């Protein structure tokens, strides 16, 4: 399972969280989504055979949120 951490521009409305959460959970290969409202970060666990971190970042961008950085962590092999 690959882990991606997206740093977003500051989130201000709690409903943004639900939006991002809902949209990402529907993506293929996504196992777990955690939106950190105060840190304005999204942590996603997904299957990298099915999806990519950049594609997931694009989903968030399409919702209208700024994605400042994408960090991908491969599981230890």
């Amino acid at each position: 399972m690959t882990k991606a951490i997206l740093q977003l521009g500051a989130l201000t409305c709690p409903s943004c969280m639900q939006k991002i959460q809902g949209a990402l959970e529907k993506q293929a290969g996504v196992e777990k989504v955690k939106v950190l409202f105060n840190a304005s970060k999204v942590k996603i666990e997904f299957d990298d055979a099915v999806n990519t971190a950049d594609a997931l970042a694009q989903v968030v961008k399409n919702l209208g949120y700024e994605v400042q950085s994408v960090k991908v962590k491969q599981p230890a092999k």
Partner: protein
Amino acid sequence: MMKFEQVIQKNVNAITWTSAALIAIGFLGEAVGSQMLYTVAFVLASIIAATPIIIRAVEALKVRVIGIELLVSIAVIGAFVIQEFNESAIVTFLFLFGSFLEAKTLAKTRESIKTLTEMAPTTAEVVQGDGSIVETDVDDVDEGDIVLVKTGGQVPIDGDVVEGSGYLNEASVTGESKLVTKQVGDGVFSGTILDNGTLKIKATKVGDDTTFAKIVELVEDAQDTKSHAEKFIDQFAKYYTPAVLILAILVGFISRDFRLAITVLVLGCPGALVIGAPVSNVAGIGNGAKNGVLIKGGEVVDTFAKIDTLVFDKTGTLTKGNTEVSDLKNYADDQNQVLAFAAKLESQSDHPLGKAITTYATQQKVAFQNLQVTTNNTIKGQGIEAQIDQHQILVGNQKLMTANQIQLTEAEETDLKNLQATGSSTVIVAVDHKIQQIIGVSDVIRDNVKENLAALKQLGIKKLVMLTGDNEITANHVAQELGIDEVHANLLPENKVTFVKQLKDQGHKVAFVGDGINDSPSIATADIGIAMGGGTDVAIETSDIVLMQSSFHELVHAYGLAKKTVANTRQNIIIAIGTVVFLLIGLIFGYIYMASGMFVHEASILVVIFNAMRLIRYHAAGAK
């Protein structure tokens, strides 16, 4: 289409200001009697300000969320339909302006984590095999790499010093900006700053595994870990917003008053209620993080504020956990010479009491290293007998003295008894068959514990309990010294757990304070587990609250902060509910309409944020 939406969202601020200007022009038009100017300006203002709100509402709907934006959008479109252009313009403007202020003020409450994350190192100077240095992204440094840090630089990894020495500022990890000397073999933390010197450090932990990264992650997670109150409000808001929508429709149908129906939509926005509780916790937890207190979430804040019984481990928690010379009774003419003899002999043994004495002698600047020991005889269970400079030296317990036919005088006997009554271990030093010194060695109580425990009682702790594996005499002495209410000695770790359980069963709300290493079971059993411990992994993982500097003032701060945060949350909920009630009454009596309703709403949101911001500056009273 996507492009258009992004452009709009990016320029929300510009849109807000434009709509403000248009509203001003509209009022100007009204003042000069130009109906045309008035209408055009307000229509334009409504359209441009409503666009981002409607986009957000649609986006939310796509993921099946009925948000505040939807309520506002419907209300605005409704107002537009019945040609109340000034209402729709002002409502949309206030909504956008409110969000703008909200973002600005929220950023303030989040400042403490932000400064924390900004302290995270980004690059490292990695020493290559051939001695050259390559600047590397911290994420690409591997364990085992050697990293160079120069004066003013930041340590990018957790590791051990392999070359050089220097003074480190460990404020980012411990919260205390005191310079600490680091030499070869010492461990250093990522995020700390080298004030002076040059260090080569071998990386033992890198990236997200470093203590600093874990602290940051913990605080970030903590600020989003919700309290009961927040969870309840989240649930409430989930049904509340759609309920308002249904209510508005019902009102519209029954009263046949379209205006009233859309007003209900605006007034029903759950603004301050949704943001009130989380914002208090964010500010409170942020304050803690800045002051060396890591609190794992709103839930912990809630529970901690209710704690009435504090249970302490003794060794390493109330005391420093290492033995020191606590008292020295001297009967010799030259105190330093006798101390030097004792220190010299002890420096050759590995007895734990010995280390305390040599350390003490070094602190007193007594030179003992160059003394020549001619014979040296260790007598098991008694002490050491040796010859230095033609003096016969005995260092040990009373048995050793009796074995050498040395009698303690009455005064010496009393001193010995007194020392033992304080729980100290004693070492008797005799030179040439004459008793010269009695040295008391004990585990020293941490600084200012007594004052801080008193401060805790003042804040609402009813009972202080000490559990220890140590003997009864020492335990009682420490308890008496500190004003502890209840003591249980000679306990094994599992006995401590039993006591914690008993206290809980008796209906006490129990927090256990330990050093986080051997007390994990008790820490886990208590309602709140508090770990003393400058940045150990175990402490960070097993406990609910971590006191980074192991100081009791942090404990007082944490407790006071928890109480203040809970009170603050309560105030915010009252403000939020009060606002809704106030608006409802205003609506019934016909004082409140859409624009004024929106104004009160946005104002109440700012009030709760400002109220929460007071927590950022909170400082616990009492001893430092």
